[in-house]
């Protein structure tokens, strides 16, 4: 009842079974998809259409991913886990971009870097389970998920590389609130 986030910082290691692991994996992808969609909507509402498209593209990826997992575990009953009982290491499922990191003037590079960080967190999550789980089958699953995330990381890194080395100037808001008339 009274345990708190911090208490659970390192509890990814506590995942005890394959179904539990799969439930986490599925949640990770679903959350990531949902988050990207929501961010895309925000960008549309605030007219940053370029980034909106980018987020939708990521969302599509995550959706595919989630679907794959769903198909693979179709006959495996997964445990019903309350949002706060997932064994993440941080405040949120690792692959979801933190809402707080996003501004409406965000640039492509910044968006990609956020995505990269998210993919890396997911990779770390699975990687850690793959390293510490006792159940070999869990390790196998985790390693497989970790590899997929690694694939994503490379993909995003490639995109960032394509942007070229020079960092684009941060976009300032030419219509700040309270602009005097």
């Amino acid at each position: 009842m009274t345990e708190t986030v911090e208490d659970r910082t390192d509890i990814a290691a506590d995942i005890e079974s394959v179904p539990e692991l799969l439930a986490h994996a599925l949640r990770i992808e679903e959350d990531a998809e949902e988050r990207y969609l929501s961010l895309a909507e925000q960008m549309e509402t605030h007219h940053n259409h370029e980034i909106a498209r980018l987020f939708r593209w990521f969302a599509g990826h995550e959706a595919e991913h989630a679907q794959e997992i769903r198909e693979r575990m179709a006959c495996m009953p997964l445990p019903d886990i309350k949002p706060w009982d997932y064994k993440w290491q941080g405040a949120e499922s690792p692959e979801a971009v933190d809402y707080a990191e996003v501004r409406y003037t965000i640039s492509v590079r910044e968006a990609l870097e956020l995505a990269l960080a998210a993919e890396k967190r997911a990779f770390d999550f699975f990687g850690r389970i793959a390293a510490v789980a006792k159940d070999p089958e869990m390790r196998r699953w985790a390693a497989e998920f970790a590899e997929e995330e690694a694939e994503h990381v490379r993909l995003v890194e490639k995109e960032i590389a394509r942007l070229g080395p020079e960092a684009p100037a941060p976009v300032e808001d030419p219509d700040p609130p309270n602009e005097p008339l």
Partner: protein
Amino acid sequence: MNEQATIKRKASDYKSEVKPVWCPGCGDYHVLLALTRMLAASGTPPEDVAVISGIGCSSRIPAYTNCYGFHGVHGRALALGTGLKIARPDLTVLVMSGDGDGFSIGGNHFLHACRRNVDLTYVVMDNQVYGMTKGQPSPTTDPEWDSALAPGGTGIRPFHPLVIALASGANFVARAFSGQPNETARILHEAVMHPGFSFVQVLSPCVTFRPEQAEWKSQVHPAPVEPTDDPARAARRIMTDDGFNIGILYRGDRPVLTARATRDPAPVETLERSFAT
């Protein structure tokens, strides 16, 4: 109306089609997330939930949910929610408001809702500023914060919502941080489950007028001790904490105010009797 409570629901079932107009980066997105996750976990059908608010950026939240909602006038959400809950005890009533709405203009209702202890949950999305009216100091704003309305700062001691809640008799008192949506969902869940008046202050940054609140992420930390059921102790703790203790801080067991409806109501005609001479 709870017959469908066993259907498994997803957080998205509690979200409406309406796209929020909050600034990207606003903490309120996380609060919405936490709210819908909490409701999904509770399984209460969306039609049995009412989300009541006042006016402010934060108070826009009802229309973003798929529950019944009331976007009332500035500062009166708690009174409206109280009337609703007493009249319709079958509903889950969440009152959601901002620090301006809830602690400035709505301060009196806060005091008296705590005392009254009706079984509802009060969530204040605290960004220490009036967001909607573009950046004036709220009761929880730092006295030094410079703004157009208070150049150089207000010089006024911030309002301490948790202490006031305790002092006025809230039955459940917690602090959450929007950047931890799952923990926030858990706290909201406990708040809803706890009988009586539950108060949750959610630190929810305003990226636009208080960009410095991005720091909160690294400042929050779990409350170091268990929740207590002793209000004096809880108050002392909270009065001396750093404002970033996250968790459930107090759980009381005061009797809940209910409508005391008669089990078998008399027919209205019986009321005439007293007038006969």
